[in-house]
């Protein structure tokens, strides 16, 4: 039940390099009027980053990944429920494994 000094230093180092990209743009750019092209470009970031993260996760999820993610998509599209799609995806993945 203790924290080793080298683990503390490692976690603080990782936290620092994580905090800078999390905080800096929000603090700096929220004070500026962004040019319209940049504002429009940034509107596509959520979709692009989610699709990329999802595809990369699926690469390592095995054969059950594709049908399970299809179920999660179908449920989300039909019900708009994020909760439902998480449960459906995990349940089908569990059944197929």
């Amino acid at each position, binding site marked *: 039940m203790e924290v080793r000094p080298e683990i503390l230093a490692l976690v603080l180092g990782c936290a620092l390099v994580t905090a800078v990209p999390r905080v800096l743009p929000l603090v700096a750019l929220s004070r500026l009027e962004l040019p319209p092209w940049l504002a429009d470009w940034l509107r596509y970031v959520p979709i692009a980053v989610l699709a*990329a993260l999802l*595809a990369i996760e699926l690469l390592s999820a095995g054969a059950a990944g594709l049908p399970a993610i299809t179920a999660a998509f179908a449920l989300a599209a039909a019900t708009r429920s994020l909760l439902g799609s998480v449960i459906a995806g995990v349940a089908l993945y569990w059944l197929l494994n």
Partner: protein
Amino acid sequence: MKRESFAAGMRAAVPVVLGYLGIGIAAGVVERAAGLSYAEVLLISAVLYAGSAQFVVTSMLSLASSASAIVLTVFFLNLRHLLLSAALAPALRGVPAWKNALLGLQLTDETFVVASGRRPLSPAWMAGLNLAAWSAWAMANLAGAALSGAARDTRTLAFALPAMFAGLLVLQVRIQPRLRGALGVALFSGAAGAGIQLAAPGPGAVIGATVLGATLGLSLERWKSGPKSSR
């Protein structure tokens, strides 16, 4: 218009909290199995607070990698937050810098997507979302550490992550004014992410695919609306 409250932000966090319980338990199991104490599991989940980075730190610790190599990998892995933080900035204009700094500290892929549909964004609402997600994450990591001896199937729990991404993607596409453009960006970014990851595995895949995908979206939009209406 009434600004949305802290409590409303916590309610909006419920689906993220559920997803984090699954992934967080999986993270706690592997962290404990890699030799971290309970206090260290709490430290890494509360202070680093980044799911994929914690998995990477854990596996690199097991491989006895050097601390500098681990920190450098985490830096590149989490560099994508630059884009998320920048995309959130227009919704938080006029908010004091110290508040934006605190809100940014707890920015994750999932809370970003839940928040990004909202304009204007209330700092209190965002704080509620952040704190609910953050405490669920730390609790789940601890629960996973406690279960580490018994639990073996972390793969199933960790599938909450892609399942949550799928749900968030549907919600994001629905709020976009140009549905076909949004679907095109999603398909292209997914293919690009997988392609880059297969060719050169690493944190560059997400960043590269995001930059390419958002650029495609903007180009399609500008091309369709024509040069004269491009504001």
